[in-house]
């Protein structure tokens, strides 16, 4: 019985259990609802939960445990000649056994016999049936594969039986518990609470897991390259090594990448902050509610555009435009039509990223500006200040901490942005200050180091984790500081 069919049957049992529980509670109450502690629906849900939940848990546990058990059983049955050759060979043999196991079903009995006594080549026999085998097969593998198939079949059968039994027993147990005064409602509530807790802990555990794996991989990198060389190195030249060769080691200086990241983020903020802030002030202070209800969502649509699309925009439109206009300008001024802005440059990436950030700045700032109490506005207007005087002298100073927080959140987005810079900033890891030249960022280099067919043993690939964790620490720091400021600001008016 396949797993999905099994799940379907469990759900069906749950469905039946729901109506059985409901009907039973109605019968217990003598069809007078007031005598029941909980509504019949809750009794039904309670029984259904007992029928479904334990069965699904057992199913999940079985699906995780049985392959592990079967693997170890098959592995221990492998001949000593294989076992003595070390872990890698055993793993390889195990993989081949599994491939053979898939293929065995497609071979006829005579073919199997032929393969077993060595009169037919295993690899060719299987290849004829469409199963590829990595390496020459050996006769013992057929036996092991047969054992593997048998154990798997048995395990499946047993699992189906046990799981269905658990479902039925669970449902019956819950049915027995039902009485008129039974607090099914509270029980269901507890299950709800439990599932919510599980959902949130999955999110948190995943985060912890990701950080953990990044840390451990970065640790492996730092065992090959010293942290001082990484954090204070000024040359980025990882020198891609051919797979397997250990000797080629490059230079992994973080500073050119970090410099590019911060420079591009700075240029982006230079564009996004004034425009976004002014848009926010207009939305919050001047726009009529009708205009606001139309314009604000439109502005936020900008935030929904995938950043890769901004990337095209930079690559196809903004970059060439800047290049051509710089050539024209140069020609007009000096007569030499040589462009001084590269198509891929800090400026291109900065402008396009700035456009991407405008809705973040404006939306966050708008929320904060509208939070400034109306009383302050009235106070200023009542003294005869104009709207812009009120904005400049009262509202912005009052909202300033919150706006700074919003800008920090935006900056952390700019630092972590990938797709735009991949397409618009270039790949040259250089330390320089000319915004018309290409530079590169941490995220671009992570993409580069991890593109292609890789193995995670050389510093060339592992450096991506060190870069990732560095970026993570920077953005996390920015976010925490921003949230701290925003929260502090909120308290002021509560």
């Amino acid at each position, binding site marked *: 019985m396949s797993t999905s069919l099994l799940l379907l049957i469990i759900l069906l049992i749950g469905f039946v259990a729901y109506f059985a529980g409901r009907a039973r509670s109605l019968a217990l109450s003598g069809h007078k609802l007031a005598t029941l502690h909980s509504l019949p629906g809750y009794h039904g849900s309670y029984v259904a939960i007992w029928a479904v939940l334990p069965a699904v848990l057992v199913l999940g546990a079985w699906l995780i445990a049985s392959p592990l058990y079967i693997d170890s059983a098959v592995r221990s049955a492998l001949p000593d000649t294989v076992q003595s050759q070390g872990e890698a060979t055993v793993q390889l043999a195990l993989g081949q056994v599994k491939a053979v196991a898939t293929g065995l079903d497609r071979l006829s009995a005579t073919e199997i016999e032929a393969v077993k006594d060595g009169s037919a080549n295993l690899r060719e026999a299987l290849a004829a049936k469409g199963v590829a085998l990595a390496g020459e097969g050996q006769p013992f593998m057929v036996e092991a594969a047969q054992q593997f198939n048998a154990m798997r079949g048995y395990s499946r059968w047993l699992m189906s039986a046990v799981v269905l039994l658990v479902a039925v027993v669970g449902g019956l147990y819950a049915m027995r518990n039902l009485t008129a005064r039974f607090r099914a409602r509270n029980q269901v509530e507890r299950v709800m609470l439990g599932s919510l807790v599980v959902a949130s802990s999955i999110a948190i555990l995943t985060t912890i897991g990701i950080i953990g794996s990044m840390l451990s991989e970065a640790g492996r990198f730092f065992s090959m390259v010293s942290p001082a060389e990484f954090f204070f190195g000024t040359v980025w030249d990882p020198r891609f090594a051919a797979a397997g060769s250990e000797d080629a080691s490059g230079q992994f200086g973080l500073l050119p990448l970090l410099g590019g990241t911060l420079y591009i983020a700075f240029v982006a903020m230079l564009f996004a902050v004034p425009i976004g802030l002014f848009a926010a002030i207009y939305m919050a202070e001047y726009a009529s509610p009708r205009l606001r209800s139309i314009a604000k969502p439109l502005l936020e649509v900008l935030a929904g555009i995938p950043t890769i699309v901004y990337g095209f925009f930079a690559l196809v439109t903004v970059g060439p435009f800047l290049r051509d206009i710089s050539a024209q300008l140069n020609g007009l001024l000096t007569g030499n039509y040589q462009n001084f802005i590269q198509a891929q440059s800090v400026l291109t990436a900065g402008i396009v990223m700035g456009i991407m950030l405008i809705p973040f700045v404006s939306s966050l700032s708008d929320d904060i500006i509208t939070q400034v109490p109306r009383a302050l506005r*009235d*106070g200023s207007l*009542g*003294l*005869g200040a104009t709207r812009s005087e009120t904005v400049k002298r*009262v509202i912005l100073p*009052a909202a300033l901490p919150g706006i700074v927080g919003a800008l920090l959140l935006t900056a952390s987005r700019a630092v972590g942005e990938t797709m735009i810079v991949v397409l618009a900033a270039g790949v040259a890891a250089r330390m320089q200050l000319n915004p018309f030249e290409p530079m590169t960022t941490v995220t671009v280099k992570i993409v580069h180091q991890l593109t292609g067919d890789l193995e995670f043993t050389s510093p060339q690939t592992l450096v991506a984790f060190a870069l990732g964790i560095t970026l993570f620490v920077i953005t996390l720091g920015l976010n925490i500081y921003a949230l701290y400021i925003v929260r502090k600001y909120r308290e*002021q008016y509560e």
Partner: protein
Amino acid sequence: MNIMSEAAVEKALDQKMNTVPLKMIGKDVSVYYGEKRALFDVNLNIRENTVTALIGPSGCGKSTFLRTLNRMNDTIENCRVTGRITLDEDDIYDPSIDVVELRARVGMVFQKPNPFPKSIYENVSYGPRIHGLARTKADFDEIVETSLQKAGLWNEVKDRLQEPGTGLSGGQQQRLCIARAVAVSPEVILMDEPCSALDPIATAKVEELIHELRANFTIVIVTHSMQQAARVSQRTAMFHLGNLVEENDTDKMFTNPDDQRTQDYIMGRFG
């Protein structure tokens, strides 16, 4: 619905003209919030150097009327004012009038103390600064000091002018707001329930202050407290359901009102 007949208005007008000059004249003032009408043809005059109290149950339109006097209603979406309001003969709703200048002449103190999140000094010097009433530091210092003195706050804050205004107690904050309004040297000060967020002691101080301010300013105050109206004002206007029910000398209003509804409200039979 007009409560006072035309003749009565004329008569009352004559009487007042003979005694105290009128600072502001409201004629047939109506206010609409969108479709809803909040004030119905109110005819109410504000006498110079007099405290005029506006009383009436919640939602009667007294605050709405107060806010028409310096066009603070302009800041409310969909609000429309009809009729005519003059300040020293100038129609304040005339398109040629500069709202900003009007609000400098007709200052306002709000229900909840709303000092700016700036220093005490900055709070008081805010108005003079935006209106260019002073140039040198010494001029500002003087305006700040006299304004705070007029608001009876100088002695309490003179040593901590650079501390934030939001750090003061509620009563002090409200007097700071009064000092802030006074600093612009307005002719009229509007007060919208200035004591409703204050304790009795702070209230007493503000009331005393209103009494003193009367010498230099024309004051209009909205209040929910009958006793406060009786204590601080010389003239009282009673509003009900968007209509002006009665306007009279405060003494007469609280002893022998002309209108039955005023009597009932003052006696606490409704509202």
